[in-house]
């Protein structure tokens, strides 16, 4: 029995190497005219497509004038139509213009996150760009962005800070004070690209951490192993209440442990070794069809068990 269990574990580690080729991911961008591309030749989803290349297909579902209420109403249909793995949400600028408070924006975005997770996709939020076209409203944008950050922290969702990326040179990055120009759109795309799992480690940046121990063990949250565990958290654990409770608990006790690990080289190596089975399991759960997963695991486990039985027969023929 022990040998069988060991074999199953080994098969989890080996399956990623022999699993079927995975189709390119689909990234869906939802939002208002900033996403739709008002006033630009290349909206940020188009620029993101250039960045990810053939690794994913980017679908632009931006709609001019959309508020979070409309985004929420339409999202379910989009999820069924597009079937994305990632949903990038940059929405709320029109809510601010039309007097809808950030508490409502936060409420609607939370419902959108729930919807995205219901379909086992990963939501990624963005802060709102500045709005110097409407100075009275612009003063309130930081309040909306704080609500978005708070939401990301409470629901374990990566938040891309487009505001900070644009604000320092907003005059040169906007076409009318509200909408980014092509260069502004490129910066928004770049922010999203950096937190998606297609960026190479040399691209710098990164965000949406939370995998404290893995980050400490592998040295950077941009390491593919860390990004894979982050996807595992977002797509496997967080859609379920039990998983959410586990993640909350993990966030409570893991930072000091991670700090200790990061300070000791030998411990980092040991933790890396210990994490590999989990990484293998995470890969399988994320990339394999459940039937393939069960069949492959049992089959490989059985094979390894049989191979394990043969050896003593050869070694001790008598």
């Amino acid at each position, binding site marked *: 029995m022990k040998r069988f269990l060991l074999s199953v574990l080994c098969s989890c580690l080996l399956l990623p190497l022999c699993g079927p080729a995975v189709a390119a991911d689909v990234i869906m961008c939802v939002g208002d005219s900033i996403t739709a591309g008002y006033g630009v030749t290349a909206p940020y989803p188009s620029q993101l497509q250039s960045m990810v290349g053939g690794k994913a297909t980017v679908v632009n579902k931006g709609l001019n004038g959309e508020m979070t*209420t409309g985004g929420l109403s339409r999202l379910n249909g989009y999820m069924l139509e597009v079937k994305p793995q990632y949903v990038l949400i940059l929405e709320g600028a029109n809510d601010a213009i039309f007097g809808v408070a950030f508490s409502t924006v936060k409420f609607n975005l939370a419902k959108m996150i729930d919807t995205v997770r219901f379909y086992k996709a990963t939501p990624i939020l963005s802060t709102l760009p500045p709005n110097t076209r409407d100075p009275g*409203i612009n003063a309130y944008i930081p309040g909306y962005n704080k609500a978005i950050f708070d939401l990301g922290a409470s629901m374990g969702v990566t938040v891309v800070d487009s505001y900070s990326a644009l604000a320092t040179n907003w005059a040169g990055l906007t076409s009318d004070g509200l909408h980014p120009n092509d260069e502004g759109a490129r910066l928004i795309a770049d922010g999203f690209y950096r937190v998606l799992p297609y960026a190479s480690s040399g691209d710098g940046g990164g965000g949406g951490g939370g995998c404290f121990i893995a980050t400490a063990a592998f040295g950077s949250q941009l390491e593919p192993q860390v990004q894979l565990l982050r996807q595992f958290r977002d797509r496997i654990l967080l859609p379920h209440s039990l998983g959410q409770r586990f993640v909350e608990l993990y966030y409570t006790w893991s930072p000091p442990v991670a700090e200790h690990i990061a300070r000791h080289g030998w411990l980092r190596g040991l933790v890396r070794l210990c994490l590999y089975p989990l990484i293998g399991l995470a890969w399988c759960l994320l990339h394999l069809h459940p039937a393939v997963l069960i069949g492959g695991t049992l089959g490989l486990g059985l094979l390894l068990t049989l191979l394990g039985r043969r050896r003593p027969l050869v070694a001790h023929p008598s």
Partner: protein
Amino acid sequence: MTQKTIPWRTLLRLLALACCVLLQGHPAAAAATGFQGPRDMVWSASDGHNQRIYFSTFLNGSWSAPVRVTGDNGDHYLPCIDRAADGTRHLVWAGYDEYGQTIQHATLANGKWSAAERLPALPATSSAPFVTVDDRGRVFVVFIGNDGEDDDIYWSRLENGTWSESRRVHADNDTPDINPYVEITDTNTVVVTWQGYRGDRYLTLQSVWGGDRWQPETVADGADGQAEDEREARSETPAESLPDFVTDKRQVFTRIHGQ
């Protein structure tokens, strides 16, 4: 009880839109889009320093020169106007200034605009006001109010020169209520319509003024609320038929009189 007010408005809008499409490009298009009667238009536009509220009225086939109604240091958005039976105009808008987000009001009587006043005893933040005046000259204003938790629909009434205290239209709840508008129906009933999150979605909700309080909310025809559509429905003039002096067509409200 469900109030069936939307089809009448929709019918008028469709008629106006059809006229507009037929007459597009014609010099007389603006005057001939089904609005030969008097109407008022208010809009928000920047004067280079602040966002101001402007007013113009359409009479005898042309729009009057725009009049700037607000001139303080605040920024003003989302204007809405209605006219009492004696011709007095009541204009409300959302003011963003050192007092925060408030609802402000001004009247036009005998060709002169009054000073702007803030509605008293507002929630912590208030925005998106809508106004209607009944046949007794009572001014009903509804708006989004927020006291630190969820957005709710509030109302206040100006009667005999005194504003009532702002109160919530609907029962207290833990979900957002947004995008209100108030109107007088053909049966002279005051009805508030808005979008509220109930159950697992936004619904279009309505409440009827019962004389001393708002009746419990009901789900309006069409059920699912699309905030943008409702927002657009507030303005009764298609953007393409607006006069050239309205350079910023994003926040324009027109009110047709005599319907």
